[in-house]
């Protein structure tokens, strides 16, 4: 039988993949995708908990996270577009004017 632990571990794996992706990808939009991946792993955890505990609140939190992810994506992409207009690039390694 598939238990809570299996879902939790799946979630942890997805979370880790997301974190690694953020660190090694250079295209900022791909990095955003990895962030979404992290949030999804959390969602999975919430739904699984909710289901195994018989406690519906977790699913509502997931709903909130959806909305937050959407808002984040909107603002993030707007920032990327604004930056692209100025510098014609969205490679994170080249975004280093501010430092020191």
């Amino acid at each position, binding site marked *: 039988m598939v238990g809570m632990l299996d879902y939790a571990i799946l979630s942890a794996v997805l979370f880790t993949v997301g974190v690694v992706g953020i660190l090694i990808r250079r295209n900022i939009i791909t990095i955003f995708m990895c962030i979404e991946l992290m949030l999804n792993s959390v969602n999975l955890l919430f739904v699984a908990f909710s289901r195994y505990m018989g*406690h519906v609140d977790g699913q509502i939190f997931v709903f909130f*996270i959806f909305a937050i992810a959407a808002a984040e994506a909107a603002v993030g992409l707007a920032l990327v577009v604004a930056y692209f207009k100025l510098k014609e690039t969205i490679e994170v390694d080249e975004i280093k004017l*501010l430092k020191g």
Partner: protein
Amino acid sequence: MNVSINYFMLAPFLILTAGIIVLSLMGVLKENGKQTSGVVASIFLLGDLYYFVKLMPKVSYRSLDYLNGAIHYNLFNLYLSILVIVCAIASFVLAEGFLREEDFRHSEFYAIILSSIMGMLAMLNTVNLINIFVGLELTSIPLYSAVAYFRYKERSVEGGLKYFVLGSIASGFFIFGIALIYGATQSVVFREILTATKDDSLFKLGLLFILSGIAFKASAVPFHMWTPDAYEGAPTPVTAFMSIAPKAVAIVILVKVLYAMFPDMFGLWHKAMFVIAIATVLVGNLGALVQNSVKRMLAYSSIAHAGYLLMAIVAFSVEGISAILFYLAGYLLINIGAFGSLSLLKKGDIDFVDYDNLRGIGYKYPFFGLLLSIFMFSLAGIPATIGFVGKFYVFKSLIVKGEYILALIGILGSLVSVYYYLRVVVMMYMKENPEENEFKFNLLSLVLLTVCAVGVIYFGLFPQSINKIAVMAARVLI
């Protein structure tokens, strides 16, 4: 469960919602919206301020609760809500002059900051982790865009982008932690988490991720890396706002998480906070030491100040909390003053925020020089200013608790800090003036700065009035 909508409890949120909608509409109907948007936004904020001040006496003995802690007003929360709103009003005043000089005034600016404030109020006045998370996002996402407000300036947008990427990662950690705690306790309400027996490793893991998520917002080392960049890139009034309100909220949430949910894991988080606090003080002060830009120096110094606050958290006592509350109030006055002074040094698109730009300013503009000196002395913690009293309380709470190492490092850190704060004064008064920049100081901002300076001195001499409330507020929590 039958819900009746309690408009009284919701009032501050409704007022702000109205404000956000009005300002967004003014942004669309551009022509006549530009000039008055600052005033309109301030009126809504004053409405909230009035509400909270009126509510203060009512909650001095018992807290008001709505929907099982979704909204929870008590003295502690209100104290900080007022702080946040005062900070916002002050930065609006600064922004008026600043944006006019830049010639880039839009109602959206105010709408964005207002929604951020709403997020902070939601975070503060609740005893529910999900509300905190939603509030955190509502605080941060507008702030990311406020940092990038000058969308035609590379620094501004870059700051916003960096803040955004790192901030989203931190939110990811934070919500992961909440999910784990939710799984372990079946609840997200403080009280229920507090009473759970925490013998499972899930609690540790959850606390760890929650801790790192909030540490990011409080710019605690090593989650502080965004701070200098975002602060430097942001329009100066936004920096002033960011360096106070969200940081105060983050510190307070950290206090709540540690004291109101995990006091029984003291042994564990004590070690972690100990290390983090020390690292924060050191990195903040050392980083500030080598900067050429005053704005960036202040960004690092705000990290250092966060470090002192984190130290007070480690003390784990009423004294520590009241020290934090007092320190935050003082820090509000000082930092509005310091960043406000910087925001005045502006001509058109160009900000003059380097040390070199300050040469001889003290002689050219004696009053301005006096104000900035007061703020710098206060940041450095010279007695007879509020900065000293704040540090005094913090270090005292540490020593009473026997945290000698922390006190020592904190004191050493503020010793180092004298150098870079004083450098500002030295530049203003002790170097000839090779630069001929004429500044037109905005009168309103100057009045605000004067008020701050008077407050810095007055409350430095008579800290009692604030401290009394801070102590009462602190008692609520422990």
